[in-house]
């Protein structure tokens, strides 16, 4: 160790050890203190428009929830007939199904190994099951007060938004839980509708919008970013318009929410990056950077 010149009288060099008796006090440091400190070496540099692009996922989910609630509102008010909704949802599903395969020209389907027949089977099973249980579903919450139902549904939808898999690698993410919560909310709301056909259609629609739609959007985003942006914008517009027809205050609030999520939050993120103050140094925990797969047989 290179010995540094010290102003004080002792000629000996200070060594950064404690097992030798030195003329310095125990908490003595020389000027080479913290010279290995590094700051923010892992800080990422974000680009504004990239972040805005990525925030589309969140916008999508918010809009899905909004669309679902609005649809339910219409069904409850009797404006939308179940047959109409069923027809429209069926058409959209077929379209989406075709698009799903056409986007990556069948590569994804071949990779996952899921046949069309399996898809058809699960659809049939699900539809039959829901149709069979729809009378039970309808009378499920008869004795529970409306306020409770609303509160429960709101809570469940919020949970759905929290636990959704937006693409981040966090521990809180649980796609199963988020989907289940959404279905639970849909069943709660569907049980408030007048007849069992309404309940059946509602649940089916919920499944489509909460399970199938995000799958399609994910693929779209990966393959055709510009298309994805367009679709997102369109979807947001539809949601806003629908909400506006129900309640204008809600529409204004929702619009501001969307804007803040898509435009304001990225700006804040980038600005706050400059205030980052992570320190790194030789005191950090060791990370194994080697690829250990060569030890596997």
């Amino acid at each position: 160790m290179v010995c540094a010149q010290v102003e004080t009288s002792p000629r000996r060099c200070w060594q950064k050890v404690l097992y030798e008796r030195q003329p310095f006090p125990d908490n003595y440091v020389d000027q080479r203190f913290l010279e290995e400190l590094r700051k923010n070496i892992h800080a990422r540099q974000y680009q504004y428009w990239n972040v805005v692009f990525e925030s589309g996922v969140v916008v999508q989910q918010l809009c899905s929830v909004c669309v679902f609630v609005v649809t339910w509102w219409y069904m409850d008010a009797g404006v939308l007939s179940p047959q109409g909704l069923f027809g429209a949802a069926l058409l959209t599903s077929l379209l989406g199904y075709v698009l799903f395969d056409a986007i990556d020209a069948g590569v994804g389907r071949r990779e996952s190994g899921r046949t069309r027949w399996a898809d058809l089977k699960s659809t049939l099973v699900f539809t039959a099951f829901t149709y069979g249980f729809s009378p039970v579903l309808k009378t499920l919450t008869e004795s529970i007060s409306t306020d409770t139902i609303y509160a429960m549904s709101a809570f469940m939808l919020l949970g759905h938004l929290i636990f959704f898999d937006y693409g981040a690698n966090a521990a809180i993410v649980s796609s199963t839980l988020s989907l289940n919560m959404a279905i639970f909310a849909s069943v709660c709301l569907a049980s408030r509708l007048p007849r069992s056909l309404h309940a059946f259609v509602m649940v089916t629609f919920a499944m489509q919008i909460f399970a199938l739609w995000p799958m399609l959007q994910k693929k779209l985003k990966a393959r055709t970013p510009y298309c994805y942006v367009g679709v997102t914008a369109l979807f947001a517009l539809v949601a806003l318009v629908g909400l506006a027809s129900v309640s204008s205050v809600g529409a204004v609030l929702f619009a501001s929410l969307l804007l803040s999520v898509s435009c304001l939050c990225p700006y804040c993120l980038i600005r706050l990056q400059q205030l980052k103050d992570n320190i790194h140094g030789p005191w950090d925990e060791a990370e194994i950077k080697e690829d250990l797969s060569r030890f596997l047989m």
Partner: protein
Amino acid sequence: MRTSHCSHNLGAAQFRSHVAISRERAGCGGRGKGVFLSCSSLWHGRLPHSSEAAADTSRLPGRSAWLCWVHHSALSAVICAPQLSKALITHPKHIPVGAPSHRVWSAGGLRSSCELHRTAPSPVRTPRVGGGQRCGVSRPPRIAGMVLKVFFPSCCSSAESGILIGRWIPEQSSAVVLAVVHFPFIPVQVKQYLREVQQVAKVSVSVLGSWNNSKQEKEESLSEFLEDLGTIFSHEPWIQISKEGDSKFWNCSTLQKQSDSHREEEIILVYYDQRKVMLSHLHPPLDTADLGAEDASKLSAIFNTVASSKVLFMTDRYDDGPIKMTHWQSDGVEASIIVELMKQASVPACMLLTFLLSLVSGVCNSRLLKFWPLSFLWSKLSTCEQLGHRLQHLQVISSSKKAQNQTQLMRKANIFVSLLIDVALGILLMSWLYRKNQIGHLADTLIPVADHVAEELQDLLQWLMGAPAGLKMNRALDQVLGRFFLYHIHLWISYIHLMSPFIEMILWYVGLSACLGLTVALCILSDIIALLTFHIYCFYVYGARLYCLKIYGLSSLWRLFRGKKWNVLRQRVDSCSYDLDQLFIGTLLFTILLFLLPTTALYYLVFTLLRLLVVIVQGLIHLLVDLIDSLPLYSVILRFCRSYRLAAGVKFRVLEQQDGKPLRLLMQINPLSYGSVVQTYRLPTYSCYPKDSWTSLCKKLFLGELIYPWKHKGEKQD
């Protein structure tokens, strides 16, 4: 001197140590200088005040000493035989007046005196000195330092002079006197008789000493003569007890032949009631204190000695044997005609009973009755269990083997008395039932009661189908369940009405079985209750199964909701990635089950409570049956009437004292307390108590598992 009367209840454990008799001797005169110091702390406040308090209390060491029978050191030894001048071994009454009945026995000159005796004219019976030289029979030496205790039977207090026979226990330094053999006797015959007794009774009986009961003043010659006897019946030590006139205070002394030094022995005289001690049975202490065990064995040695010497007590004074004895039965052996008759009659009765029982058990164990529906039915009816239990009891009683020990005898007696009481109560019940057409009345009230119960149930169900207690039920499920149960009740009512003409006849025949015992009648009652409330049991099972299924499904689906799964291999919850359709259906079902939970839970709760009510009623009846089965009535009555038969220990009462005379104690039997009697002699029963603890019972109730609170011992646990 005031009588110091301190009687304490002593357990066998405290025989040695808790006899706290504090006696202070004033002065050092007299022979025994013993001061008995065993003062335990119990005795602190209760020591009698021997008022002759010339006592120097300095003689008493600390009161908390645990010592017993402290042997005082300054005693003088008794010098052995040679210098005594003895009389011939004759009965005092046979001594012809003026006859030279004295011979001088020189030291060691026993043989010469024998010759002298052989040539003497004998209106007297001469002894043959068989064992004269055999002075030093090897006996285990006495434990030095222990005071000699002589257990003297109270019935021999007024016996004529003679020699004492009994057992010498060297480890405790105590001599248990069993009888007094009077003059005239031939020593060889005495010894032979004692050998025979020893062989039969397996107790080492020997001659212990001499007993001198002189009605007038002390006869010197007789006492010297009795001392001489000690040389013939060599026993170490030779105990001499003498009584003058009607005095209460006796003289006791011992002769030590082996030791040279003249030591004065401290002797304690303990009176005991021979008959009571013989008949009583000592119960060891239930808590095993280590001090208790060895002391208990000391006391039980004494009790066993008296109890095993039954053959000794069989000869009474009217027998024409060579030996005349005095003991508790010497006035005639006790017997009662009734007991003898019963003993004679019991043998053929037992044989007949055994034969009948073997027939019955053969029928019961036959293959015919073991088919599945029947065997299932038998196992469920508690009447059959009770009958089997009683059958077993009868087999125990009527077995031809004699009872080996006291416990078995008591057990047999308890079973017999229990059966008798049971049958008597049953016949009483029967006589009440069949009088004034009670059966008819019962049958007439049975149908309306069943109807009433059914109506109450229907009302309950209607209440549940509405909004019970303000709870909001799922209407559809409510209706379904309510209608289902109502239909069930309707079926039940029709069934009861169908059976109504036959009820009276059935009851009449069933009531006849009460002659087998009250317990059987109670078991039949319990079974009838079970049959009448069968629909409640069915409802409970339906409700419990439904609820259990729901809880199970809910827990599994809740795991699916969170994206987890139960790993059966590792017995833990793991994460799992489900398929889409699995998720959908799972969530749907979860929602449905969750919202239907309150309804099912309420039905389950109501029917469980009803079932528990019925179970409690049945349980109470079974408790009563168990009580009658297991109560040891014979032992309790014995404890009440003849309390000395069941002994927990002994207590000592200090009798009047006099200076210079040995300490006199009266040993009284301390009977067992009623609680210990019941605990010791309880008969085992066949049913056991609830096998679940409270927490596991609550857990089972919560999860909806079926509960069987009263499981019988014989059934396999699943």
